[in-house]
Structures are given as C-alpha cells and as structure tokens.
C-alpha cells in the first residue's frame, strides 16, 4: 500500500512539473524516477519513452503506466497513471471555472484573440517538427498530403485515417516502397 501511495505522489509531482509535455518531461522523469527513487535505469526510461511515442495515447501517461506496472503490477500501472493526471484535473478545472466567468470581458476576449494567433504558430511549429521525423520518403509524403487534403475537405473521423494509414504502412513496407 505504501508503495502505491509513493507511486501516486511521485507521478503527481512529475505531472505538476511537466510543463508543455513531450521532451520537457525527460529531465523531470530522470530526476524523480531514476536519480531520486531508483525505480528504473536511464536506459529503461529511454526504452519506455520510445515505446510511449509509438503507442497511442499521451506519452507521459504511457511512461507512467510502464513504471507503475514494473513496480507493482496492474494496480501500480493504474495508480501511477492516476497520479500523473491528477494535477491537470485540479489545475485545469480551477482555471476553466475562473475563465468561464471572465470570458465576456472585452479585454479577456482581446487577449484570447491574440493568443489564438500564437496557437496557430505553435501548431505550425509542432507540425514542422513532426514532419521532419515522419515524412522520410515519397510514400510517407503522399500519405501525409492525402490525409491533410481529405481531412480539410471531407468530414471523416480522424480514427478512420489512422486505421487506413497503419494498413498502408504495412502494405508499403511489404511491396518495398518504404525508403524510396
């Protein structure tokens, strides 16, 4: 029981200190999980992280489940995950509650109009970064552009694209298109 509580607290700390997600999380996990608690080695962390990136879901959550599972089996995996999302639940609920009551003030509306411009740029930057890692040959270039155009103009669930593209990835690899 004590170890489950430890897991929850350790990952709640990781959740609070993860600011922006993704790569921002690595040094914090290293410090909290590897250095302070010795729950995993640096190499194991890198493995978890790599798998976390290529499995569905939020990377921080996937990593938490891995380490929790390693420490305390299924219960550990679940508790560590609840720990990592707990701070978000509290903080976001508070902020959302406050913002809803201020949303109609003109200055708040203007601030968010400015912020939306920034969000555009941040999404653009995220896209170019992911593009470099995933569009590596003609086949992936074609897939990416096709998905982009179809999802801008047609009303199809993103889940459908995801399933079809996974199948396409397997097909392209089989017929030897990959890497060309």
């Amino acid at each position: 029981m004590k170890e489950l509580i430890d897991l929850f607290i350790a990952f709640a700390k990781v959740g609070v200190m993860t600011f922006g997600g993704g790569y921002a999380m690595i040094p914090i996990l290293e410090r909290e999980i590897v250095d302070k608690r010795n729950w995993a080695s640096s190499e194991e962390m890198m493995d978890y992280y790599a798998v976390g990136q290529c499995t569905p879901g939020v990377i921080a959550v996937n990593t938490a489940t891995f380490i929790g599972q390693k420490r305390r089996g299924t219960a550990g995996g679940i508790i560590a995950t609840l720990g990592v999302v707990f701070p978000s639940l509290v903080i976001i609920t508070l902020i959302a509650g406050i913002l809803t009551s201020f949303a109609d003030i003109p200055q708040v509306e203007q601030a968010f109009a400015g912020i939306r411009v920034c969000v555009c740029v941040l999404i653009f930057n995220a896209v170019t970064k992911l593009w470099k890692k995933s569009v590596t040959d003609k086949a992936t270039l074609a897939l990416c552009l096709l998905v982009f155009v179809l999802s801008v103009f047609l009303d199809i669930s993103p889940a459908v694209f995801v399933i079809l593209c996974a199948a396409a990835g397997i097909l392209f690899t089989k017929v030897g298109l990959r890497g060309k």
Partner: protein
Amino acid sequence: MIYLRLFYEFFKAGLFAVGGGMATLPFLYDISDSTGWFTHSQLADMVAVSESTPGPIGVNMATYVGFTTAGIPGAIIATLGLVTPSIIIILLIAKALKAFRQNKYVDAGFYGLRPCSVGLIAAAGILVLKLALFNTELYQSTGVLTDLFNFKAIALAAALLILTRYVKKLKDLHPIFFIAASAVVGIVFAF
C-alpha cells in the same frame, strides 16, 4: 447520457491519437463538429490554456473539454476516457516490450501512422488559422476582400513565426512566454 458519450469520445482519442499532445487536437475538432458541445474558438482557447499550465497537453485538453461540456464530473470522465486505452495497451505490451518494439508489423504500421498524424494535426491547424487570421463572417456580410484579412493578427503571426523559429535566443523559450506576449499584444492593439 452525456457522460457515457464523453467517455467514449475520449477513449477514441486516446486509442487513435499517436505522437503525443497535439495529436489529440484533430479528435477534439471532430468531437466539436459531431456533438456541438463547444465551438472551434473555445477549442483554440483551450489549447492555449493547456499549453500554459502544468501537466501533459493531451490530458489538460481532455480535462478542459470535459469540464466545459459537463462540469467537474465531465472533466474527470473525459480524462479517464483518454487514459484508459493507454493503460490497457501498455499493461498488455509491458511484459513483451522488446518483442513489441522489434515486431515488423508494428514497425510498418507506425511508419504509416506517423505521417497520418502530421496530416491530421496540420488540418486541425487550418481551422485555427481560419479563426485567428481571417474575418470570414465580416467578409461574407460586406463582400469587401480586404475585410477578409485580419491584418493585425497576420502581422503578429509573422512576428511570432520569426521569433519562435529563427531567433536563437528566443527559439527555445517555453511556449507560455509567447502566449503571454500575444495576450498583451491582443489587448494593447484591441484585436
């Protein structure tokens, strides 16, 4: 039953969003379009708040959308929906981690999934772009082409692009600095 639907929609996002934080975005737009629980402009604001607060972005967005849709229970249910597929999948593969990573079908599947995710996020970005840089409604009512462009916003976007991509000292700053600066610009120049 809004809670069941919330759980289902976020379960789907958790299951199919590959590649971290922003990958959940296309699913949130899909939820907005199919349920009408929140507007595109609310969603853009939620992205900004999720980027500027502690916690993984994907989790923050789920909590925010859940709260907007159905209060505190909604926030909890949406977040649990998002993480449930992760928990199940990771628990399943944790024991066979090496075999999973080296499986050629898994590898080939992800080779196709990654560019898909990029395309989906870019398409979601277009929706934010339309909202932030163009006055589509004003243009439709006046028919004057120059009314279509929100010039102040376009100037800010250009400045931000240069600052976040090409200015060495600023490039690595946390997004929250740019979000805060954009809020100030929005108020000062009455966006």
